[in-house]
């Protein structure tokens, strides 16, 4: 039986133009919609309104550490005090907190029980508050975060008169 010979050529030329068009469109879309996102993190604060009023003290409770941040006229940091004692800066605040709570940060430790109350001037730049929270919350050692105090609260805001 005679075999039917194919009339098709050996190599079929596929038109790549539409595919390349679409692929370049895709690349352009991704390039233009690209937004470089910087990594962000949170400081978790639990501050119920009821706790602002005097809660019943118990034997386990450690008196809160009061950190006062005062602002200069331009909103920059003028002074820091911890329980009324003036400090040189955030590094000293961190050292004082370390000296107070020690290195034990496990469950039921002093670091877990201690609470820091921030009293900030209204006009103080918020970046200073975050620096102060960083100083009391922990430190980075060998690339790992060692947590210190997690219980943080703020005094009610005091809006300056006028």
């Amino acid at each position, binding site marked *: 039986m005679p075999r039917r010979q194919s009339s098709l050529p050996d190599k079929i030329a596929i038109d790549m133009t539409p595919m390349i068009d679409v692929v370049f469109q895709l690349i352009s879309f991704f390039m233009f919609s690209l937004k470089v996102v910087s990594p962000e993190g*949170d400081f978790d604060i639990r501050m119920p309104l009821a706790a602002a009023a005097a809660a019943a003290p118990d034997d386990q409770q450690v008196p809160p550490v009061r950190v006062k941040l005062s602002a200069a006229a331009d909103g920059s940091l003028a002074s820091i005090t911890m329980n009324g004692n003036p400090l040189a800066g955030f590094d000293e605040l961190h050292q004082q907190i370390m000296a107070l709570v020690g290195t034990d940060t496990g469950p039921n430790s002093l670091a877990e029980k201690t609470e820091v109350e921030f009293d900030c001037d209204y006009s103080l730049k918020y970046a200073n508050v975050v620096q102060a929270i960083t100083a009391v919350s922990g430190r980075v050692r060998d690339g790992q975060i060692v947590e210190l105090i997690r219980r943080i609260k703020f005094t009610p805001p005091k*809006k300056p008169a006028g």
Partner: protein
Amino acid sequence: MAIRRAGAPTTTDIDMTPMIDVTFQLITFFLFIMNFSEAEQDDRIQLPLSQLAKPVEGLIEKPITLQLTNSGNVIYAGELVAVRDIGSYLEREKMAMRDSGREPNAATVIVRADGRAQAGEVQDIIRICQDKGFERFALRAQYDEGR
């Protein structure tokens, strides 16, 4: 003078394979680098830096994001609102939460405040949220690798 005839064929077959390979690599790169998360981020906010602000693991369930600008206004759901007016918006959030069987004290309010904003305004926001029954706050900062 004799004209030299070109011996080349009329059509040249260009091998497209390497170009397509590279192009698909590029698409893959952009796909991976793209941020598909629904995190609310606004370019107007310059977050304060902190070396402890490492990216959070796991998503916060249905958070409310309040972004405080340098000028003391709040960006809430893409809208610019004065700090004193956010109470009514939060009231609406609270009602919506209660309708879905959740209490406001279970929700987290993410505060993305500009580092140049006044600390008192952040405290005002917290106080208004507290008045509406919210008690979990996440103060957002940008991770500082430099120190």
